């Protein structure tokens, strides 16, 4: 089913990821404008573009004794992670590559976000940046295990870690129907890995922007764009994992992939605004005592079903 290595997929990947990231940022701006009671909230959709232009025209700010090399490495790592992870996400039937360990590739690449956020927080040489870095590491410890078990459940259900085969395995029934717990845990871990919405504590305003406290100019643009791209790519990966990939009536497969991705991404952005930030000193306990057992039970059910 998959058509790995299609040349056009390589060319299309960056603009599609950028488009989805921009769409998510614009949608969030519109919702924010509506909540603040501003007239013509729809106009706020252009705010991310405006912010991008503003950041491009600004010199980066320099901070005494900042570790610029580490800071830049972290800043560039975020969008790089998003693009590398997107290589195994199919658009319809086409994807850049479809290795036998596609799911593992996604997971391995996405863990580099830990390094990215820590490097940025540490490199800015500010107490707030450091606190943001600590917060992301704590968050990683809380979400990564449930996230991996959710991915494993999907692999178990499809009897394969190849993304193309996972999509094929859902031709009769989408995985979301009989793996709802794994789906919910996956969506939560999407917010966590993109440190977005209720899981945005590493860059929260109470620590003056946390890991991003000193970022300005193009550094900030890369960091923020990378974060939205990560959110978009991780949301898009939910489509082949749980929502039948490009399957659907009338429209071509690539269009169904985009429609489903837009629904998941838009829903995440909408839902993310409806909760306060959760702090890891409280959430980590719930992640280990509730999420991990829940997703393990899910895995057990799936395991018995495929026997």
């Amino acid at each position, binding site marked *: 089913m998959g058509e790995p290595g299609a040349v056009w997929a390589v060319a299309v990947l960056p603009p599609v990821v950028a488009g989805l990231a921009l769409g998510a940022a614009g949608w969030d701006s519109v919702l924010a*404008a509506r909540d603040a009671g501003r007239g013509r909230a729809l106009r706020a959709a252009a705010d991310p573009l405006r912010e991008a232009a*503003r950041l491009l025209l600004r010199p980066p*700010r320099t*901070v005494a004794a900042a570790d610029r090399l580490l800071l830049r490495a972290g800043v560039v790592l975020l969008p790089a992670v998003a693009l590398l992870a997107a290589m195994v996400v199919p658009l319809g039937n086409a994807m850049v590559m479809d290795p036998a360990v596609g799911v593992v590739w996604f997971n391995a690449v996405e863990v580099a976000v830990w390094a990215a956020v820590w490097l940025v927080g540490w490199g800015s040489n500010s107490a707030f940046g450091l606190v943001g870095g600590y917060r992301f590491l704590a968050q990683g410890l809380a979400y990564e295990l449930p996230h991996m078990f959710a991915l494993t459940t999907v692999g178990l259900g499809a009897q394969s870690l190849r993304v193309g085969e996972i999509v094929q395995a859902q031709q009769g029934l989408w995985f979301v129907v009989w793996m709802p717990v794994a789906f919910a845990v996956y969506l939560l871990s999407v917010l966590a890995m993109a440190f977005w919405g209720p899981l945005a504590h590493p860059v929260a*305003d109470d*620590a003056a*922007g946390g890991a991003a406290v000193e970022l*300005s100019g193009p550094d900030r643009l890369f960091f923020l764009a990378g974060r939205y791209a990560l959110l978009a790519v991780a949301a898009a990966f939910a489509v082949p994992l749980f929502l039948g990939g490009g399957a659907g009536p009338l429209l071509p497969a690539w269009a169904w992939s985009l429609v489903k991705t837009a629904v998941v991404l838009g829903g995440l952005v909408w839902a993310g605004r409806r909760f*306060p930030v959760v702090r890891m000193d409280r959430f980590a306990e719930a992640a280990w005592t509730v999420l991990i057992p829940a997703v393990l039970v899910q895995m057990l059910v799936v395991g018995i079903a495929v026997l």
Partner: protein
Amino acid sequence: MGLISRLSCFAAGRPPFFVVTAAGGTAARLGVEAEARERGWRSVASPAACSVLVVCGEPGPDLEQAVERVWRQIPRPRALVRASVPGREHLITLLDRAEHELAAPDRRDSGDHAAEGHESGDEPGMADREADRDGLKLDVLHVQLGPVLADWPAGLVVRAVMQGDVVQRAEVATAEGTGRGSFWTEPWTAARTGDPVARGTAERRGAARSLDTLGRLLAVAGWDRMSAQARWLRDDLLADHPSERLTARFERLSDSVGRSRTLRWMLRDLGPVTAPPARLAGDAADRLHALLAEAGTAMGLLDDPTPLDPGNEAHDAPDTAPVSLLPDLLAGADLGAARLIVASLDPDLDRPAASATHG
């Protein structure tokens, strides 16, 4: 008109702004926040992220120094707004000028009196090692919270000794007020001096004060959506919008915030207070509910025309109780919890005779 200048024009719209409030600058801050909201300006929590630095009220020498240091670090194009007095017309002129300056980046900006030192002097003060709460030797950071910090009470400074993100010890200082009293207690002060004030007017101010505190607490709790709604309602209250629609909006807001399990989960057991006054009793979650109840009562009395009796409650007495509680409450809290504790107490340091040092 070249591409760059056209891009600058586009980029200058709806700039992100960072607010610094001096003691006594509350009225100016409220004016700026309302006007900026109308224009679609976005408030940000870090000076590095802002294009416009807004200084509300009249900063004393210490704050002025901090403002200049922060200003030097903001990359161009940038604009400095000094909103020393409230007044809508005045603020409109100031914000217009800032937008204009950002769109024409070639010109020298208004705050260019300071020398061009781009390096910041703000690096964390690394002292030495101390045993932490588990007895491990860990690096100690000296971190000052305030006076330049978003969603932070004006005039409050907390000098914290931190290990990792945990506050080990905290010293609290307050800036000298202007001595002119607090914006929030004006109706009660006026009634005391014999001016006729309707009860409804005072309740409107009281409700706006509760919503300001609520907006700040929710912002610190990372709930932008509800924080924005609380501040919008506060602005409409202060702009004397008719009470019926405001009451309905408040009910919805109060329901969503009061019923949020996640928020209660995050606020529970933070900063427990047993001593009076009653409105501070309990943990941060209890204080949130007391705040909602207080605002709800005030919202029901917005149209009360009876004259205000200033004598029954000490509304303009010094608000020293929260400040004296802070050092004990903050010790052992992590930064996130410490910020929530301060926001849930939200001392009004503009009231007279509130200046003192505790530690």
